[in-house]
């Protein structure tokens, strides 16, 4: 009964809103806050104090809870989206940085930089249910759309570790370029993209054959090779286009995800870290660490349409579905 009521309320709210207004959450690494942006107004509607050094953030399926890696508190905080406050914490290992959720939403996989482990957390039980030893300084986390394959990247070992989620063991280690920081699957699961911050490349991995099938590098006119440091990657749902944050190059590269050719570089704020689409893929939001703002990219027109000031050192960004 309760559930039905909730669905009704939810449906009413959905139909009542005229435009697609989503809520974007931005973690501010130094501000120890989360900025909440209304993507219709393109403005910050509230700023919430959270744990220390918030970086990686993820939403659960219905957007009701946000999980925040609070690195300096050695915990993952649970943020209730409706109440807009922290309601609890999950036991990660030391210094959690990035996390990913199983497709069913039951398990969090988190990389703990300080002890070379990927930790599994049962969200309902609020308990650790396993550890997987990986390389030095684990960071990037991704899970295949079918939930079978988990990927972790280790920054100093320079590998993408492919993990079978059923057996919780590593089934392949793929050497990529220096300091791999982020991994994401193409929405159809056919490719795994890994960004190497210091190496300056994207490795496109075939998850079936477990080999690198292509590498993408970048060339921004007038900018030294060293300044081009790929981090966040977002790929459109239809798999046609990818966007890559280039860190201190202050640009987002637009890539034809079929041919892997770089089509364009969009100038955003300084030291751009992570990216997130709105669910309708109208906008792409970028968290710009040094300039303390979020750039809004109009995805159809490939133009930066606005920059929104947020807290100190924005790092992660996610957008809640309707």
């Amino acid at each position, binding site marked *: 009964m309760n559930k039905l009521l909730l669905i009704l309320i939810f449906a009413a709210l959905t139909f009542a809103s005229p435009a697609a207004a989503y809520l974007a959450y931005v973690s501010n690494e130094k501000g120890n806050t989360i900025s909440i942006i209304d993507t219709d107004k393109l403005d910050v509607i509230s700023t919430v104090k959270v744990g220390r050094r918030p970086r990686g953030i993820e939403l659960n399926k219905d957007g009701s809870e946000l999980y925040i890696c609070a690195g300096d508190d050695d915990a993952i905080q649970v943020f209730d989206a409706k109440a807009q406050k922290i309601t609890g914490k999950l036991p990660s290992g030391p210094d959690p940085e990035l996390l990913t959720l199983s497709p069913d939403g039951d398990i969090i996989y988190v990389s703990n930089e*300080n002890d070379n482990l990927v930790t599994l957390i049962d969200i309902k039980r609020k308990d650790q249910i396993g550890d997987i030893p990986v390389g*030095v*300084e684990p960071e990037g986390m991704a899970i295949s759309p079918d939930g079978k394959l988990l990927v972790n990247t280790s920054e100093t*070992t320079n590998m993408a570790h492919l993990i079978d989620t059923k057996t919780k063991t590593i089934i392949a280690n793929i*050497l990529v370029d*220096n300091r791999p920081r982020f991994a994401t699957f193409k929405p159809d699961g056919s490719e795994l993209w890994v960004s190497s911050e*210091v190496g300056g490349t994207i490795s496109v991995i075939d998850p079936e054959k477990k080999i690198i099938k292509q590498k993408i590098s970048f060339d921004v006119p007038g900018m030294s090779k*060293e300044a081009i440091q790929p981090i966040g990657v977002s790929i459109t749902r239809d798999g046609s286009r990818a966007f890559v944050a280039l860190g201190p190059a202050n640009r987002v590269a637009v890539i034809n995800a079929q041919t892997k050719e770089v089509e364009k570089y969009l100038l955003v704020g300084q030291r751009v870290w992570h990216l997130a689409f709105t669910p309708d893929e109208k906008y792409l939001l970028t968290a710009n660490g040094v300039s303390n703002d979020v750039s809004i990219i109009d995805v159809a027109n490939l133009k930066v349409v606005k920059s929104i000031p947020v807290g100190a050192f924005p790092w992660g960004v996610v957008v809640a579905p309707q």
Partner: protein
Amino acid sequence: MKRLSAILWLLLAALPAYAQTLTIKVGVLRQTHIRETLSILDLPAIDDGLAGALLGAIDNNTTGKFTQQNYEVIDSKLDQDADLAKETDALIDKGAHFIIADLPAQNLLDASAIAKKRDALLFNISAPDVSLREEDCRANIIHVAPDRTMLADGLAQYLIWKQWRRWLLIKGSHPEDDSLAQAYRRAAKKFGAKIVEERLYEDTGGGRRSDSGSVQTQRQMPTLTQNAAGYDVLLAVDENNVFADYLPYRAWEPKLVVGSAGLYPTNWDAAHEQWGAHQLQNRFVANYHRTMNARDNAAWLSMRIIGEAAVRTQSNRPSDVLTYIVGKDFSIAAFKGVRLTIRSWNQQLRQPILLSDGRMTISVSPQEGFLHQTSELDTLGYDQPETKCRLK
């Protein structure tokens, strides 16, 4: 039982390509550093430099679990009357064809001559001499430590950025101080600063610490620095730690001290934590119960360079490793914000220079606006068109 042996057979059949573990032995050949430091905080630890190599081996061995490589460190600490040639040979006899060297310039060249005959590759983690990268450069030495011109240029760029262009240079009386002063004169000319005057602080020998040291120093330093032409910063040139740390707060004029004290250029500092460096610092303190100094870091980085090359080439042969690290595919991450590479013409590691006061990373050079056609890192130190190095 049958089933178990079947599984074992399957495992063995699946593994042949990886069954063999590649062992990489790395020697650490290190001098004993003097305990005559001005500050008690700078006293060298027993495992100075070595600890960095050991941590590098731990990191490489974590990766080695996945690549079937195993790294071993063999320590060789030289006391005052050690026979360098014998110790170098002994390390190579034990299988160490990579040697991390914390040696003065001449000893490094002597070790290089032995290593050449025996197919070993050296990694210089401390000698800052320009000559080692120029007229006396050697094909079997990789310079992980920056040289004096890189350090001087790193500091100079920041002083120019701050518009502190007038420097009063006070140098010590050791030959190393002459070389370092020369690097600062070169930097002043290169970037448009002016050395308004040079003064000398004579090292008269004797102990550097006493129970009432500060009383005398308080009277000496104003005298040493008074009646100078107008200047912006006091540039201390004192590589042997004889007087530079006496200058801050004690000079005649209330001016900042830079160089060998105050704001100093370095390849690493215990206070550095940007670009993920806190992870490395945490690992180091957890393992060795002290902070990581510049030599420790260069030793760690040498080990990482060896590890990176050995993983990519699947080889433990010095010639394969050398070819890879001077080649265009090599780069290494070292928590300094950019990838580091090797200058192919003299085998010097390209790297940003940290500017620290011992409490904070104040800035990192190259500074914004110092441009270069290939790499901004090559605005630090001698560049390819100027080099006298002919590797042999």
